[in-house]
C-alpha cells in the first residue's frame, strides 16, 4: 500500500455566504429527484410524529368490533378508513400516523445513543494504546455474546416496559456494531499520511481524532445507522410480540406489524401499512444518507452539481 493517499487539505470549502450555501444545497437536492422524494417523505413522517397524536389520537383508539378488518381503499366510513381497519375495527390511517411518534422516538433514540457511544468507544479503541483498545474490544465481545433477548427480559422485568427503557435495551445491544466498525476505520485512517503529518506537527490527540479522523469515519457510520433504524424498528416489534415491548394503548409500527401477523392470510392490510411505513422510512433515510455523503464530500460534489448524469 504505497499509493497516494487522499490529502488532508481537500476540504477547501470556499467561504460562501450562509444564504448562498443553503440555496446551493437545496439546488442540489432539487436536481436529485430520489433524494428530494426521500426528504419530503421524512418530513411527512416527522410531522406525523410531532402532530399525529394531537390530531388523531382519539380516532386511533376508537374501537368498533362490528367494523373490524374493513378492507382498504373504501371511504364509505370516512377518510380515516381509507387504509382499512384493524382487528378491533380501529381505523388504520390514524393508527399508522399516531404510531410514528413512538416509533421515531424509540428508533432515533436507540440509534443515536448506540452510534454516539459506539463511535466514541471505537475512536478511543482505535487511537489509544493497544491495551485500552483491547479492553474496549473485549467489552464489545461481551455485549455481542449477551443474548439481547435476555437483556430485554432482565431490564424490563426489573424496570417497567416504557419508551425510555426500550431505548436503553435496544441501544446497548447495538453498540458493538458501531464500536467495531469505527475502530476498524480508525486503524486504517490513522496510518494515512495526513494523520501522520498532523502528529508530526504536534496536534493534540483529541484534535486529530475529532478534526481529522472522525469526519472520515462518519459516512460509514451513517450508512450503518440508517439501516439500523430499520433493524431497531423490527427488533422492537419482536419484543412486543414476546410481551415485553411497548404496551397498548401505546402503539408503534413494530407492534402493529406483529399484531397483524396472524391475519396475513385473511387481512393483509393489517401488517402491510405499518410494514410499508418501516420500509419507506428506511429507504428514505438511506437515499438521503447516500446523497448527503456525496453532497458533503467536496471530492464528489461535482456529481450532483452537474445534474443526475453522473458517470464513474
Amino acid at each position, binding site marked *: 500500500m504505497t499509493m497516494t493517499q487522499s490529502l488532508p487539505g481537500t476540504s477547501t470549502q470556499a467561504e460562501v455566504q450562509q444564504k448562498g450555501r443553503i440555496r446551493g444545497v437545496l439546488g442540489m437536492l432539487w436536481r436529485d429527484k430520489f433524494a428530494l422524494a426521500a426528504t419530503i417523505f421524512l418530513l411527512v413522517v416527522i410531522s406525523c410524529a410531532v402532530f399525529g397524536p394531537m390530531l388523531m389520537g382519539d380516532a386511533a383508539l376508537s374501537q368498533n368490533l362490528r367494523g373490524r378488518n374493513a378492507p382498504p381503499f373504501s371511504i364509505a366510513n370516512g377518510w380515516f378508513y381509507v387504509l382499512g381497519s384493524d382487528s378491533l375495527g380501529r381505523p388504520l390511517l390514524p393508527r399508522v400516523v399516531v404510531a410514528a411518534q413512538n416509533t421515531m422516538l424509540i428508533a432515533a433514540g436507540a440509534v443515536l445513543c448506540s452510534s454516539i457511544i459506539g463511535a466514541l468507544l471505537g475512536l478511543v479503541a482505535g487511537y489509544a494504546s493497544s491495551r485500552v483498545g*483491547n479492553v474496549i474490544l473485549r467489552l464489545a465481545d461481551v455485549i455481542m455474546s449477551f443474548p439481547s433477548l435476555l437483556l430485554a427480559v432482565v431490564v424490563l422485568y426489573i424496570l417497567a416496559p416504557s419508551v425510555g427503557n426500550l431505548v436503553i435495551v435496544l441501544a446497548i445491544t447495538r453498540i458493538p456494531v458501531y464500536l467495531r466498525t469505527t475502530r476498524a476505520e480508525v486503524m486504517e485512517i490513522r496510518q494515512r499520511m495526513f494523520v501522520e503529518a498532523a502528529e508530526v506537527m504536534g496536534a493534540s490527540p483529541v484534535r486529530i481524532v475529532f478534526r481529522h479522523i472522525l469526519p472520515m469515519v462518519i459516512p460509514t457510520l451513517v450508512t450503518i445507522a440508517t439501516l439500523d433504524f430499520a433493524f431497531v424498528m423490527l427488533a422492537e416489534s419482536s419484543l412486543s410480540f414476546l410481551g415485553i415491548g411497548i404496551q397498548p394503548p401505546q402503539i408503534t409500527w413494530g407492534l402493529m406489524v406483529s399484531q397483524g401477523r396472524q391475519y396475513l392470510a385473511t387481512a393483509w392490510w393489517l401488517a402491510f401499512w405499518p410494514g410499508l411505513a418501516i*420500509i419507506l422510512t428506511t429507504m428514505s433515510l438511506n437515499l438521503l444518507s447516500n446523497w448527503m455523503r456525496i453532497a458533503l464530500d467536496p471530492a464528489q460534489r461535482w456529481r450532483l452539481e452537474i445534474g443526475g448524469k453522473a458517470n464513474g
Partner: protein
Amino acid sequence: MRKLIFGRVLSSFFSLAALVVMVFFLSRLTGDPAALFLPREATQEMLDNFRRLHGLNDPLIVQFGRYVWDLLHLDFGQSLRQARPAIDVVFEGFAWTFQLAAITIALVSIAAIVIGSLAAFRPDGIFDRFASVVSLIGASAPDFWVAIVAIVVFAVNFAWLPTSGTGTVWHWILPVAVLFIRPFGLILQIVRGSMIQSFGSLYVKTARAKGVGNTSIIFVHTLRNAMLPVITVIGDQAAAMLNGAVIIETIFGFPGVGKLMIDSILQRDFNVVLAAIMVTALAIFVMNLLIDIAYAILDPRVRT
C-alpha cells in the same frame, strides 16, 4: 501474529468469565423456575421439594460457588426442563445453528461483495438504484412476514419445497433464503459505500489514468482497500446469527440454539441459558479472532 493470538485467547477468557458472572446473577433476578416448572396448583410441599432437588434454596452465592466448581470439572449442570445435561442440549442446537449461519453468511458475503462492487462502479446508475432498492426493501421487511409469505408461495401454492422442518437438502432452502435477505441488504450497502469512497481516492484515479482495465481496478485495488469495514460488518452479522435466528428457527421448526435460548430464558432454565451463552460466546470470540487475523493479512499496517 502468535502474540496476537495468545493475547486474544487470554483476554477472551476473562470476558467469558465476566459474561458467566453477569448472566448467572442477572438471570436469577428474573423469577423462580419452580413456579414455572410445576403446575399452578402445586402444593407448598411440591415447591419446596423442587427447590431442594435443584439446589435453589441455598443463598445465591453458594449456588454460584457450586456452579463454578462444577464448571471447573466441565459439568455445565442439568437442564431443568429436559432432565439431562445442559451442554448436550446446547450442542444439539448449536450444530444446527452453526450450519445455518455458515451457509447463509458464505452466500451473503459472496453475493453482497459482487453485487455491491458492481453497483459502486456506476453510482446512481440503473443497476445501483435497482440493487439498492431491492436490498433495502429486503433489509427492512419483517422477517416473519417474509417467512410466512415464502411458505405460502413456494410450499403451499407451487409445492416446490417442504413448508418447514429438517431432513433433506430441500428443507434448508427456505430458511436460508429468508435468513439471507436482511444481512444481504446491510452488507451490500456497506460494500457499496466503501467502494465508492475508495473509487474517489486518488490512487484509484491514478490507476485509471494509467489505463488499467476496469475489472482489475475493482478487484485488485479498490476491493482490498474497502474490505476492512466490510469484514467487520460481516463479522457482526455472523455473530448475530450464531446467537440464533429466533424467528426463522421458530417458524420453520428448525431446532437451533436461538429457539432453545428463547425458550430457556422464558422458562428460566438457567443452566441451559448459561451453557448456550458460553458456547455461542466462544464461537463468537473465535470468529472475531479470525477477523482480526484477516485484518492483519489484508492491511499489514494494522499489526501492532
